[in-house]
């Protein structure tokens, strides 16, 4: 089967969800209400075509004065005047009626103007529902318009003003005639707004379904972020299998012995505990250990800004800045307020693909939960996607998760129902002995490895960090079989009056 001749839009992230571009000659309808970014998208389509793909273009305007369009484009770094001087762009101001009448003529002046510079792309801004010249249907009028554009083999993008937010209930007749429909939306999320683009249809090729987020970025233009849930390459799913022979040391003295020499390469480890239980300290040591071994390490922090992370590391004797300067550590901080999850994930993907870390820490999962909400699928889908990303790139990853329970835990993850997705779970607890809370660590889950699930004491020493204390117990400890207890599944089993004891060998 021949490969379709795809026109790349050149818009960051958009060609990815269009699986390479839009078939040449397609009539593209960009639908959306006012302020959704239709003009920016269309102008960028023509600008990138002329600048990056040697495809001259024409822009047709009905209401916006060309000088304002040129001024606004300059904010994105697009010099439209220069393109005009180079005869790679023409901007024509006209009326809808004149445009519609003209395109019906075989000797169209407008299309002749486009042909004069060898235009391959056309953007028409501000189209509204067309009136059929002889009182016919708007759908027929649009069809005639499309035929006029087809004659010139132009890939035309038409921005259609839409007053409806739900096109399923109010489909414009133009949508049935157009070959490709990009629907732009802007919706409130809490008190912020989120822009999204959806490929409603596109004849002649495959594309990623669903609504993908995008931003309009000053100095650049549109940036489209594929929705987190969209399937990636099958390679990513295959990456879930990890090498059972290689281990990644934890960097915590005493912990490696409890996890059979370290975590598996590309495994997913969850460190769960209340604030102050030592999760971040463990993370810093995990990263520093990797750097000491010459591995590239990525630390993603949502809770603490970089200066605070550096200070924390310094307090346990780690010169984090030096590791960053050596290029061994990449510290990336994103404040969690109003997080756009598609964009956030795209940024992580870009970092992982360019920096190629071998270890990573994400601090913390609970902050994602606060931003995305744990009740809906958003959080779980995001976590699934990030676990798959890290496994594909064989990154051994530790996720911190704050459990609000101070003493003991009634559940490992609370409302965060993701423990089935992780390979290892380490519980960090407070244990109150006398008048002191002491650090306790339990390896609760090690996928494909044996674990004792014994609780160990830890300590965090200023200037040195955390270590798991040795268990100095020697000799025999009485081990009471299950039959010696009542209410084993409850959180407070009681010993039977008469012990049925046995002794450790």
């Amino acid at each position, binding site marked *: 089967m021949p490969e379709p001749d795809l026109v790349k839009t050149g818009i960051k992230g958009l060609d990815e969800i269009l699986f390479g571009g839009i078939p040449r000659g397609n009539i593209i309808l960009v639908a959306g209400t006012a302020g959704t970014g239709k003009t920016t998208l269309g102008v960028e389509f023509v600008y990138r075509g002329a600048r990056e793909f040697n495809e001259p273009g024409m822009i047709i305007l009905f209401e916006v004065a060309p*000088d304002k369009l040129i001024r606004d484009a300059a904010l994105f770094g697009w010099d439209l005047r220069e393109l005009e001087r180079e005869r790679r762009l023409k901007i024509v101001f006209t009326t809808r009626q004149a445009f519609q009448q003209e395109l019906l*003529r075989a000797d169209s002046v407008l299309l002749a103007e486009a042909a004069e510079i060898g235009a391959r792309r056309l953007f028409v801004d501000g189209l509204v529902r067309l009136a059929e010249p002889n009182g016919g249907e708007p759908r027929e009028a649009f069809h005639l318009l499309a035929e006029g554009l087809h004659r010139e083999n132009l890939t035309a993008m038409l921005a259609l003003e839409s007053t409806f937010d739900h096109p399923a209930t109010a489909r414009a007749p133009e949508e049935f005639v157009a070959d490709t429909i990009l629907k732009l939306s802007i919706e409130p999320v809490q008190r912020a707004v989120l822009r999204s683009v959806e490929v409603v249809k596109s004849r002649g090729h495959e594309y990623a379904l669903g609504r993908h987020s995008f931003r309009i970025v000053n100095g650049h233009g549109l940036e489209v972020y594929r929705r987190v849930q969209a399937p990636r390459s099958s390679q990513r799913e295959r990456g879930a299998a990890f090498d059972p022979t290689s281990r990644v040391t934890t960097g915590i003295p005493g912990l490696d012995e409890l996890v059979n020499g370290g975590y598996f390469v590309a495994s997913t480890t969850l460190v769960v505990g209340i604030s102050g239980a030592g999760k971040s300290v463990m993370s810093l040591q995990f990263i520093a250990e990797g750097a000491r071994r010459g591995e590239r390490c990525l630390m993603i922090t949502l809770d603490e800004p970089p200066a605070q992370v550096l200070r924390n590391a310094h307090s346990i004797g780690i010169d984090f800045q030096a590791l960053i300067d050596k290029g061994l550590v990449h510290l990336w901080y994103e404040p969690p307020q109003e997080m756009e999850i598609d964009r956030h994930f795209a940024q992580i993907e870009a970092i992982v693909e360019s920096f190629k870390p071998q270890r990573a820490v994400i601090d913390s999962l609970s902050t994602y939960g606060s931003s995305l909400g744990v009740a809906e699928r958003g959080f779980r889908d995001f976590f699934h996607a990030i676990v798959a990303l890290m496994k594909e790139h064989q990154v051994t990853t530790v996720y911190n998760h704050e459990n609000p329970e101070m003493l003991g835990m009634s559940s490992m993850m609370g409302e965060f129902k993701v423990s089935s997705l992780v390979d290892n779970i380490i519980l960090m607890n407070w244990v109150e002995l006398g008048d002191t809370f002491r650090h306790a660590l339990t390896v609760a889950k090690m996928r494909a490895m044996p674990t004792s699930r014994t609780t160990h004491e830890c300590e965090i020493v200023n200037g040195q960090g955390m270590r798991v204390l040795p268990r100095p117990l020697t000799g025999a400890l009485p081990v009471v079989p299950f039959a010696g207890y009542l209410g084993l599944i409850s959180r407070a089993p009681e010993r039977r009056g008469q012990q049925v004891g046995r002794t450790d060998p």
Partner: protein
Amino acid sequence: MAPKKLRVLLDRFECLKDPCDLDLLLFFYRHPRAFLISERLAAYVGYDRPQVVQSLEVLITARLLRRSPDSTHPARLYVLTPGSTLGGWLSSLLRFAATRDGRLAVIHALKQRQSSRPSAGPEAEPSRTLEHFHGG
């Protein structure tokens, strides 16, 4: 811009006589390539159509504006084509006239220029082409 400097600038555009000439030029400065019917153009600039048609002829004759030749089309394509020698002067004039005060100053200067000339009927008016002003 000082009145004297403005007069010197306007001397390079002796074809401009009527405020409509200037307003059309300003319109085409903002819309350098416009495909319109003359009625719509008249509505955009706010003059009667006959006045606009006359001013269009002035600008086209002076080669400041190009118009698509095929008159069988209802709309015509107008392209601002500042001559190579006058391009810089035209930009200076239109940038100045792009503000309210600037436009009023230019219109005032045009009226002054008209009134200071010996009266003559339109038939006696010399050809308003740039060649004429260049001595061509």
